[in-house]
């Protein structure tokens, strides 16, 4: 319980700090700055902590719309897949298998290589990597919920489908979604960071988390503080998400 509170407080603190840093950090074009190595600063002489928090804010700005699309689209598709049309179910499941069979990072790389100036590479690649598993989760949840005794009982007592949805299925789905939300968020953050770490996206206006970590990796011997200051918040964020996810599921 204490760990859960700590995780929540950490997430709130991170959100506040990153919002403040996002306001403070101006648009700095790194290649115009002189290279130097000072403890606490990156190779372009910018404060690592400030940059990291600003990058975290940028990550959230990118990820919140993706999260919304993921949840709404997954739910709609899962509703369709879990319906009673076997042919439709077969086709939809095959499409999901197709997306699961394609390597997600390859798609990100391919998009980045074919369309170097395309701003939505991260969004598209992230959606391709996250949607199949989220749709499957919602599908299995809906199939299971529909076969529950209380749902059958409600139908037998003459309740219409809308009533069953509003009073039985939706509350269960809301709780279930809340319990997997930290897990989905953790995946989204990791995918977004990994894609920008690989450097396939166009040079952004603001520094991204993945690019900072990549810089830290390149200068691990000369300036280990870059990886430490940009990597540690990511590890703490992941730990908070895992703790929340575990507690919600318990």
């Amino acid at each position, binding site marked *: 319980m204490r760990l859960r509170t700590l995780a929540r407080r950490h997430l709130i603190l991170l959100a506040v700090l990153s919002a403040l840093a996002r306001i403070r950090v101006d648009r700095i074009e790194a290649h115009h700055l002189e290279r130097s190595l000072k403890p606490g600063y990156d190779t372009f002489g910018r404060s690592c902590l400030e940059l990291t928090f600003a990058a975290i804010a940028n990550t959230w700005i990118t990820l919140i719309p993706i999260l919304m699309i993921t949840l709404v689209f997954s739910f709609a598709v899962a509703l369709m897949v879990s319906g009673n049309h076997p042919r439709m179910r077969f086709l939809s499941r095959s499409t999901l298998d197709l997306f699961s069979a*394609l390597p997600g990072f390859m798609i990100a790389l391919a998009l980045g290589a074919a369309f170097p100036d395309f701003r939505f590479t991260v969004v598209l690649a992230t959606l391709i990597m996250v949607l199949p598993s989220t749709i499957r989760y919602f599908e299995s949840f809906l199939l299971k919920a529909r076969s529950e005794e209380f749902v059958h009982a409600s139908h037998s007592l003459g309740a219409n489908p809308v009533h069953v949805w509003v009073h039985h299925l939706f509350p269960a789905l809301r709780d279930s979604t809340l319990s997997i939300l930290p897990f989905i968020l953790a995946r989204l953050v990791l995918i977004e960071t990994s894609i920008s770490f690989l450097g396939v996206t166009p040079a952004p206006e603001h520094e991204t988390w993945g690019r900072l970590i990549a810089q830290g990796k390149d200068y691990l011997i000369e300036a280990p503080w870059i990886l430490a200051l940009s990597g540690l918040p990511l590890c703490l964020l992941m730990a908070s998400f895992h703790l929340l996810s575990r507690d919600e599921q318990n």
Partner: protein
Amino acid sequence: MKGLLRILLVFSLVWIIARSAVFLLPGDPAEFLVHESLVQLDTPELREKMDLDRPALERIFSLPRNRSLIRNEKASQLLIRAWSRTLVLAALALLIALPATFIFLFLRFQGGLRGRFSEASTLILASVPLLIAGPILLRYVPLSNPLLPALTLSLYLVPFWSRTLSRKLDARLPMSSVEGSRALGFPELNIFTRDLIAPALGGFLAFFGSQLGYLLNGSILVETAFQWNGVGSLLGEAVLSRDFPVIEMTLITSALNTLITQQVGYALQTWWDPRIT
């Protein structure tokens, strides 16, 4: 039968995507590749080498050219070499990750201080992403290839597997005969293996099928960080240098590999526990 039909359908879709991906390039694909990639060919030659002189439909439904545009080698040879290296990495990662997962699960099953240690360790390991663990291990752990990338890969797999499996075991625990076996005085390891792991193994096997597919397709992050020339690294290089014959062949074989390992997982699950369909 249905599984086979689905494999065929998905494989056909992957084939179509892989063979038609070149048409998604902006403008004339051949012109684009000559100007934007490392290909050292002129436009007509490239058009011929990539079957772009054929009608689009004919190209999509024909076999890909087996020649890399960048390296003067057959794409299939490159792929076989990369597969063999990825296979070594996957086998080593499995050798490390499977026993480690078993140990973490067993410690968690024992509860008390050991259980807490197991939970804390998996939480810490799960919180360090590959893109941070890779460079740190590369810098500070005195191990050589392929042990180091295999260790990094297993550091990602162990917490993921043990957290997923521990949830399944927790759900199964109330229905198991663990309490009865404990009352009869059986050793803890026997109880854990026979009363908890063995009955739950069916579900595990299907899960491992999909994980095996992931491992065999190579991890771009790990292979790039450790300069291990496996499938992930080959695919990454091919995409960045727009070597389309290699991209097409790698994509098709990776998808086939994922589909087959998934079905193998399901088959093993049904064989182990026929009640699961």
